[in-house]
């Protein structure tokens, strides 16, 4: 589904290489986890896939269902089914959360040539999904993420994912800043979306999220590369011994 080959990325503004040949394939129906020390390039990978400006791809490809996504606008990638749950969701005061979500859902539908979701159906759906994530009506009315706590922001990301029903979900440290209960809610939200047609790339710094979202494959990223891949046991190894051993072992 998502195929990343030999991806090299540098900063646009300066001569600093961040990704140095990432190879990664996420199959439909699978959950891949990416772990790695701070600064290893995990967020950069997620931003480059989502289409954020400021990065330059110097080599390599990334395709979604065989289609090159690196040449697409961010909104086209979203309409093609790519979703990024941000490590740092952006606060947008003055834009109602609900209005924002309805605009997003319908913009994607329009781009795909599908019928727009009417407001009754939208309201019904969002209320149900929000309830599952313990997001109250008040939060839906407020400005997008504005004044939200860290945990509320992360739950709001998952709500957006649930409403947009993307086929390829990238979650960038969605667990950071969450207490155990909130993490369980988030994990439940993700697990509910797991199905045969959907792929997940779950970026995390700690193993604990992977107790709740059990991955099929775990990758270790260091220095802008995937240095090791394995099963869920790899995450446990990291938990026990830290990254140093693995990074040293492959160096």
């Amino acid at each position, binding site marked *: 589904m998502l195929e990343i080959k030999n991806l090299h990325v540098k900063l646009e503004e300066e001569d600093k290489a961040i990704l140095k040949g990432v190879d990664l394939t996420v199959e439909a129906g699978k959950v891949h986890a990416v772990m790695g020390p701070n600064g290893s390039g995990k967020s950069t990978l997620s931003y480059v896939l989502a289409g954020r*400006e400021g990065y330059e791809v110097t080599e390599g490809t990334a395709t979604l269902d065989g289609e090159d996504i690196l040449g697409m*606008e961010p*909104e086209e990638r*979203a309409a093609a089914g790519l979703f990024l749950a941000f490590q740092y969701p952006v606060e947008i*005061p003055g834009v109602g959360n609900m209005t924002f979500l309805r605009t*997003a859902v319908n913009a994607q539908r329009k781009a795909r040539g599908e019928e727009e979701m009417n407001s009754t159906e939208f309201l019904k759906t969002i209320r149900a999904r929000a309830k599952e994530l313990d997001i109250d009506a008040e939060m839906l009315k407020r400005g997008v993420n504005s004044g939200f706590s860290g945990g509320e922001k992360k739950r709001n990301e998952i709500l957006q994912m649930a409403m947009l029903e993307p086929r390829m979900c990238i979650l960038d440290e969605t667990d950071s800043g969450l207490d155990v209960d909130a993490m369980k809610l988030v994990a439940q939200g993700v697990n509910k979306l797991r199905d045969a047609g959907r792929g997940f790339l779950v970026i995390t710094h700690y193993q604990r999220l992977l107790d709740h979202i059990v991955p099929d494959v775990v990758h270790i990223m260091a220095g802008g590369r995937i240095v090791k891949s394995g099963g869920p046991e790899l995450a446990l190894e990291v938990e026990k011994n830290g990254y140093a051993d693995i990074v040293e072992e492959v160096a």
Partner: protein
Amino acid sequence: MALPQPKLDALDARIAALSMPEDGWPRAAREAALARLREMGLPGPRDEYWRFTRPDTLVQAEAPAAALFENDEAPMFDAFDRLKIVFTDGVFDAEASDDLALEGIEIERLAEAATADLHWARDLYGVLEARGHSPVPRPLAALNTAFAADGVLIRVTGRPSKPVSLIYRHESETSDAYLHHCVKVEAGAELTLLENGPAAARFNNVIEAEIADGGTLHHVRAQGRDHERRAATHVFARLGRQSVFKSFSVTVNGVMTRNECVIELDGEEGVAHVAGACVGDGDFHQDDTVFITHAAERCESRQVFKKVLRNGATGVFQGKILVKPGAQKTDGYQISQSLLLDEDSQFLAKPELEIYADDVACSHGSTSGDIDEDALFYLRARGIPEGEATDILTLAFLAEAVEEIEDETLAGDITARLEAWLARRRG
């Protein structure tokens, strides 16, 4: 001090084609206004409050021509039950207007009431304008008092069931229109005054509003969207004890707009809010010049101005809060912000505070910025195309000004219009 000859010549050239109405009680005020004008002269580019806005097209003898705007939208404020008074190129249109009758107010036209022997408006016409030249002269307002032949005189004695809506149509490409309105809100009375439309190729409009103790005046104005129209407007308001004045203007298009607002808070616990939202694209110059005087204790004033500018458009804000000695517990707030959508556009701001009392809370701020790239990316990453995402952020930026309108339905209407206008531009 006599004006230098070139300034006098310029003034003579300006008024050569104008004739002072031969009416009754306003005549003395007109003469006095002309005398004031002869002392202050027309605005020049070196005058303190005209450095950011070129006065030439507003002071030249003939109005520069302005093409008519093809407008296929529903008329502004159409959804509201209101008493409509229509002026076309500054001339009253009886056929298009409603009967000037509404419970709780008395409405007359200046042109008709001016021949009466005695009239309440005698104590208002030209009076607030005359007080409004300190510390800086406002010659275009004096010009208006001297020569405006029509306008409405509204005395509010109760709480009318609907707003009074002044509609300004523009049908002649070369029209030069002057209207002068007086609004007297009696103690405890309340009125909403709406204004909309381009009015003329060049429009000079004055409102003098006297709001007695406990009175309320809401003013919402949508300036016409004819690209080439020009307007110089003045609102002079004097507020009594515990009275409220809230004024909001939306300006979209128009090659030249200068809106001046002069407010005196004369009684304790008065509340004055002035706000504006403007969207300018290309050949567009919009100026808000606001002067608020706190002359009594425990009054509150707010100025909230938001300007969205692109393709070389210019926005100006000059706002001053003057707190007089003894006006303790003054609460003054002023914010002016611009959203510059490209590097060709500019925002010029001159925020000022002058305070002669020690126990006051006054703050002012002015910022200029471009679209928040992080927010834009966030919206796009959710599938919202760039143009639409930019509009969403633009509307959010303007929202703080629009929210100053107290009536939520009116505010919602303005927001919906702004949304549609932005979408239109996107094509």
